[in-house]
C-alpha cells in the first residue's frame, strides 16, 4: 500500500476535485481515498476527511460483498441519500475510491456522469503512482 510520505500532496487529483465543483451544481465536496481508508486528496469543506474515508471504506466493503453475493459482479458505485443530500462513492481502479457529497437539489444524473468521468482520470493518475511505488 501507499506510504504516508508519498501522499502529502497530490495536486492533480485535488485540482480534479475542485474542478468538479464548477461542473456539478450543489456539489459540496469530495475526497479520494484508498479502499482501506487512507486519504489521498480531499476537498471536503469542513468535514473530517479521515473519518469519512474510514466510513467510506467500511460502506464499500459491504457494498462490494453485497454486489458479489447477489451476482452483480465487481463493485462500481454506491449512492446514499440523506435528508439533506447525497453521498456517492465510485470505484476508481481496484484500490482507490472517489467519494462525492452533494446537496438535496443536486442533479444525480449529472453527478454520476461527471463522477464517472473524473473517476477514470483519477484511476490513470493513481495507477501510475501505485506502480511507481511497487517498483521500489
Amino acid at each position, binding site marked *: 500500500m501507499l506510504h504516508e510520505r508519498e501522499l502529502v500532496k497530490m495536486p492533480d487529483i485535488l485540482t480534479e476535485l475542485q474542478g468538479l465543483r464548477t461542473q456539478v451544481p450543489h456539489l459540496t465536496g469530495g475526497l479520494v481515498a484508498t479502499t482501506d481508508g487512507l486519504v489521498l486528496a480531499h476537498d471536503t469543506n469542513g468535514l473530517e476527511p479521515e473519518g469519512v474515508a474510514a466510513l467510506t471504506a467500511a460502506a464499500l466493503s459491504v457494498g462490494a460483498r453485497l454486489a458479489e453475493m447477489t451476482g452483480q459482479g465487481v463493485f462500481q458505485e454506491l449512492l446514499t441519500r440523506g435528508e439533506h443530500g447525497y453521498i456517492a462513492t465510485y470505484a476508481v481502479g481496484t484500490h482507490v475510491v472517489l467519494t462525492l457529497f452533494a446537496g438535496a437539489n443536486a442533479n444525480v*444524473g449529472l453527478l454520476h456522469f461527471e463522477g464517472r468521468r473524473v473517476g477514470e482520470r483519477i484511476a490513470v493518475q493513481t495507477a501510475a503512482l501505485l506502480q511507481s511505488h511497487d517498483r521500489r
Partner: protein
Amino acid sequence: MANVELALKDAMNSIDGAIGVALVDYNSGMALGTLGGGTDLDLNVAAAGNTDVVRAKVRAIEMLNLQDAIEDILIALSSQYHLIRPLTSRSGKGLFLYLALDRTRANLAMARHQLRRVESDLEV
C-alpha cells in the same frame, strides 16, 4: 392509458424522425425510461443535461412571476430538434418527456402534436 415502456415505444414508432426518447425525473436528473439513442446520443447523459435546462426555465418563470407553466421547450440544432415536454398530470409531477428528432425527417408541428398525445396517454 399507457405505462412508461408503452408510451416510449409509441413515441418512437408514431413520430417521424424520432432518434431517441426518454422520461426524466428533473428532481434527480435520472431517466425513468429511455428508448432509441445509441452511441451518438446517450439518453442518460441527455436526461442529466436537459434537467438543468428545465430547472433553469422553471426558475426563470418563477422569477418573472408569470404564474404559468411550461407546455414544451424546443431546441433546434442544425441537424436535430430536441423537444422537452413536462408532464402535467398529478402523478407525473417533476417529470418531463425528452424527444430527439432528425431534422431532415421530422415534421415539427406533427411531432409536437404527437408528443402531446403521448403525454396525455401516459400514466406513471
